[in-house]
């Protein structure tokens, strides 16, 4: 409170405080659920080691929004270091699956059996990262054809502050 002569007036201050927490919003694929990328290489693809495009789900939406500074995306999988498996003892290395972004600035880390590959994402401005793109997956048939069967695995991408 303050009082004073009318000419010069009287003033009183009011302080403000806005508390903004840090956050990361990261989405790979659909808003809810886990997407499936399906490859069905032809006999010729398998025999020749050709590149096979996804039959379905091969183009995946990716969104990254954060106010926490530079973000690193790290890949992991559920293969325990052995790759995609056929339910038995046959494996396809995760490295045979390659994702390419269709716009620069939000690159995926390369998938690997051991996991742990990273991709450092540059901020958009200041501490803000606001990027979206699509990752397009292909399957590189290995030079030595794997045993016939259906191989499955789940990859996990994690965005975090270094």
């Amino acid at each position, binding site marked *: 409170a303050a009082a004073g*002569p*009318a000419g010069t007036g009287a003033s009183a201050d009011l*302080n403000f405080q806005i508390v903004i927490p840090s956050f990361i919003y990261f989405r790979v694929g659909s808003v809810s659920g886990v997407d499936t990328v399906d490859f069905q290489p032809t006999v010729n693809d398998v025999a020749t080691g050709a590149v096979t495009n996804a039959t379905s789900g091969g183009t995946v939406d990716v969104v990254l929004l954060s106010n926490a500074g530079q973000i690193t995306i790290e890949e992991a999988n559920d293969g325990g270091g052995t790759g995609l498996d056929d339910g038995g003892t046959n494996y396809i290395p995760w490295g045979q699956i390659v994702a390419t972004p269709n716009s620069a600035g939000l690159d995926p880390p390369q998938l690997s059996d051991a996991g742990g590959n990273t991709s450092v994402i540059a901020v958009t401005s200041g501490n803000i990262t606001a990027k979206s793109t699509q990752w397009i997956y292909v399957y590189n048939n290995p030079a030595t054809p794997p045993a016939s069967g259906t191989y499955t695995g789940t990859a996990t991408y994690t965005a975090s502050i270094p």
Partner: protein
Amino acid sequence: MKIKFFIIAFLIVFISPIAHGKITFVVWKAPPEVSIQVGATTVVTTVTHDLPASQVGDGTPITGTPDDVVIEASARPTGFIITVDSSTPLTNGTHTIPFTDISWTAKKGDLPSGRFNGSSTQVILQPNPSMQRVKDRFTFIYDNTRVVPYGTYTGSVTYTVSVP
């Protein structure tokens, strides 16, 4: 003894005279004075807008705490103006949030609801020749329409009452 008495009476007349004096009293009109109270009376109040992480920049308005800030102004004799200076933005030391992202609602309506415009002399209340005192309670609201870098942003506004 008669002579003595006469002398004494004569002296008494000259030693105890009767006189008159005048005193003139002048009462001046009290000088014009204004007063203002914003929030608490003895300390500067801080209005805090605390955002949940899931709502940063999503457009959900964030009400400040306390949500009931007293604004009271008076003037003698009458007719005062209230202005506010919100020209210096809030800052976390590196990044800023302008006060234009904050609005208020007045509970009684004796003062208008509004929004800080970021100027140094925003008029909150125009002069009213018959008004000697006004009091209301404000609730402040942060827009939260932009994703801003994390941190605690602080700043101050200054309310001024004067007679134009």
